[in-house]
């Protein structure tokens, strides 16, 4: 549909990945920077606002705008250049993590930072400054960005590096799409010496054991992530299965050369080679709605003992990293209410106390997350960073269909957020749905917020770029 401004806006229902948040919006899918500039000019003239969106992998409202305009960048998905000698890629913002490794793996390169799904776009990864299972070692996505071009709401194309404008560089990356639209990014990848990783499954008895493992291994392991069974109580509180993965050295895994074929890195699309995994979500939906999540978690925990006995084993990079892609449309198991994720980042010294409190409060409230994921982090230099020297615990909550249950969940998460903020913790906007306006300065500190608002006033004085998230936080 082409409207009076000459642009092909379409009316769509735009939601976060968790489906619980979002609503109708007018969506444009530009294919070049000129079209984005035209959209900026047209919407500014109307006095409206625009939300920038990549693959829509943010769980909450970071890429939605109820009743507003959304510029979806997924069609700008060309890899403009890839240097096979250095592994440095120049990409359009809609290029996904999958697009990047499919190009790089034949040359022995893998993205330095990847999320749990390969659907994430480079523009979205930079805007949210995503992290991976190696955050404690290699830092966040922004740290592998060498430069970017940012189209500002006023229509200027700014080429930016760490050196040319450090303030903009560190604010646009992590700035959740508030300062402008990335139109191209130059990102570094890293050398890998095999198409596979050496992986260990390690059973963690309880929360303290989990945290101890993270501390013991973080100087040695390349990747660490722990799945938590948050239904465990008493001595089993915070039990789980830690996964450690190490890169292999040259000559250590010669057969791993065959996994340099990109198709060998994709996660399998069928179960046992026969059943399409796209058919699995109704089974998971049944487990959620018959309240059998605790049983499923217990079974998974018990299966961890078997995995531990079989460790270490070799696994492709893709199979290790992209667990969220194993079951297509898995989030539909939480229909009709959808899901939200709550991922607090807690400083090291308060880690065990705060995380224990969070889990206990969820259990006491009868709202136990069906999934918990624990990771280790380190600080990074980005202005709106979520990273701390400490831990994060991602908790996935199924949102009930009823209004009262939904409100109770939001209240619970806001109480949990207070506990985290009191301990000097932070939050990650790709995962947030509940923080209040009053929390924004508590997350980042008054100085960082003032600097960010100064950048916003400089590059977007008309406040053209807005999302449901930015309005909720009063950015």
């Amino acid at each position, binding site marked *: 549909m082409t409207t009076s401004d000459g642009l092909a806006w379409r009316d769509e229902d735009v939601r976060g990945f968790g489906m619980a948040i979002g609503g109708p919006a007018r969506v444009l899918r530009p294919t070049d920077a000129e079209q984005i500039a035209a959209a900026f000019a047209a919407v500014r003239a109307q006095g409206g606002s625009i939300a920038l969106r990549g693959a829509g992998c943010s769980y909450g409202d970071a890429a939605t705008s109820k009743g507003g305009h959304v510029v979806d960048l997924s069609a700008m998905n060309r890899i403009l250049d890839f240097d096979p000698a250095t592994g440095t890629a120049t990409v359009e913002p809609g290029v996904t993590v999958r697009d990047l490794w499919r190009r790089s793996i034949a040359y022995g390169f893998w993205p330095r930072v990847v999320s749990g799904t390969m659907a994430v776009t480079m523009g979205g990864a930079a805007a949210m400054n995503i992290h991976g299972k190696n955050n404690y070692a290699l830092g966040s996505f922004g740290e592998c960005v060498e430069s970017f071009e940012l189209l500002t709401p006023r229509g200027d194309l700014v080429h930016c590096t760490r050196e040319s404008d450090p303030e903009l560089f560190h604010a646009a990356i992590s700035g959740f799409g508030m300062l402008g639209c990335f139109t191209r990014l130059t990102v570094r990848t890293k050398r890998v010496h095999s198409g596979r990783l050496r992986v260990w499954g390690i059973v963690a008895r309880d929360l303290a054991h989990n945290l101890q493992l993270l501390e013991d291994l973080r100087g040695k392991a390349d990747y660490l992530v722990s799945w938590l069974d948050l239904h465990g109580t008493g001595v089993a509180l915070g039990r789980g299965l830690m996964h450690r993965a190490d890169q292999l050295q040259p000559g250590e895994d010669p057969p791993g*050369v065959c996994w340099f074929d990109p198709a060998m890195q994709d996660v399998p699309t069928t179960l046992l080679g026969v059943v399409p995994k796209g058919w699995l979500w109704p089974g998971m939906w049944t487990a959620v709605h018959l309240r059998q999540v605790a049983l499923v978690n217990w079974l998974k925990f018990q299966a961890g003992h078997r995995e531990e006995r079989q460790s270490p084993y070799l696994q492709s990079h893709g199979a290790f990293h992209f667990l969220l892609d194993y079951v297509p449309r898995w989030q539909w198991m939480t229909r009709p209410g959808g899901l939200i994720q709550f991922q607090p980042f807690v400083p090291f010294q308060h880690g065990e106390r705060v995380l224990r409190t969070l889990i206990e409060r969820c259990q006491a409230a009868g709202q136990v997350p069906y999934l918990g994921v624990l990771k280790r982090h380190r600080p990074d230099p980005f202005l709106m960073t979520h990273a701390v020297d400490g831990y994060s615990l991602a908790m996935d909550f199924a949102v009930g269909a009823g209004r009262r249950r939904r409100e109770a969940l939001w209240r619970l998460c806001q109480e949990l957020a207070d506990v985290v903020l009191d301990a000097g913790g932070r939050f990650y906007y790709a995962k947030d749905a509940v923080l209040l306006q009053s929390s924004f300065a508590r997350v980042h500190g008054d100085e960082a917020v003032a600097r960010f608002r100064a950048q916003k006033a400089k590059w977007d004085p008309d406040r053209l770029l807005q999302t449901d998230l930015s309005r909720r936080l009063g950015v």
Partner: protein
Amino acid sequence: MAPRSGTCIVVGASSGIGLAIARRLALEGRKVALLARREGELRAMAAAIDDALGRQAAFPYPHDAADLDAAEPLFARIEQELGPVDELHYVAGVMPAVALDEFDLAKDRLQVQVNMLGCIAWGNAAARRFLARKGGCIVGVSSVAQDRGRIGRPVYNASKAGMDTYLEALRNRLWRHGVQVTTIRPGFVETPMTAGLPLRGAIAADAAAERILRARDRRRAIAYVPGKWRLILFAIRNIPSFVFRRLSI
């Protein structure tokens, strides 16, 4: 079958099935000459293979398969630098997009040059040497597209059919001298050449390479990859012309 130990040449080694074959040959412990056009990419891929194996096994030789006269001297140079060659894989192929009302000689000529004449140039260079040495193996990657002339890509079909027939003749000529010629007819394989095509059930290039080397080891004359395509093509070959012309396959 005597274990092979000589040098291998893979023509068309910078992507897809050719690259996957080159990796697996290197993994077998062979010296592999990788031939493809783009020098930077080729060198980086060879370096990645060496890096994974922890030893030098992949040797890049920039070469344009359409440059037919370069085949013979390059074959000689590879033998001089890496030692006698006893295995040739011809995997180079081009499949440009062709509209149903398009008859473009430039595209057609390129397909005949790369898909058919290139195979003949390298096949001849190998056959001459292997015949004299009474041993060696030539593997040519043809296509299931060679079995019928179809509306979508007339010259791709024709060039692959020409290559396929050449390989059959070479096999008949050389088998009595102990030289093996194996024709591979792949079905849907996930490669850069087929990127963007709606290929249901396509297998990974590495899976195709594994099957191709198995067919080589079993001294197969013609191998469909994967094997189910033999049945599918049997059916397609036997569709009468007056029916086939009405189909869009």
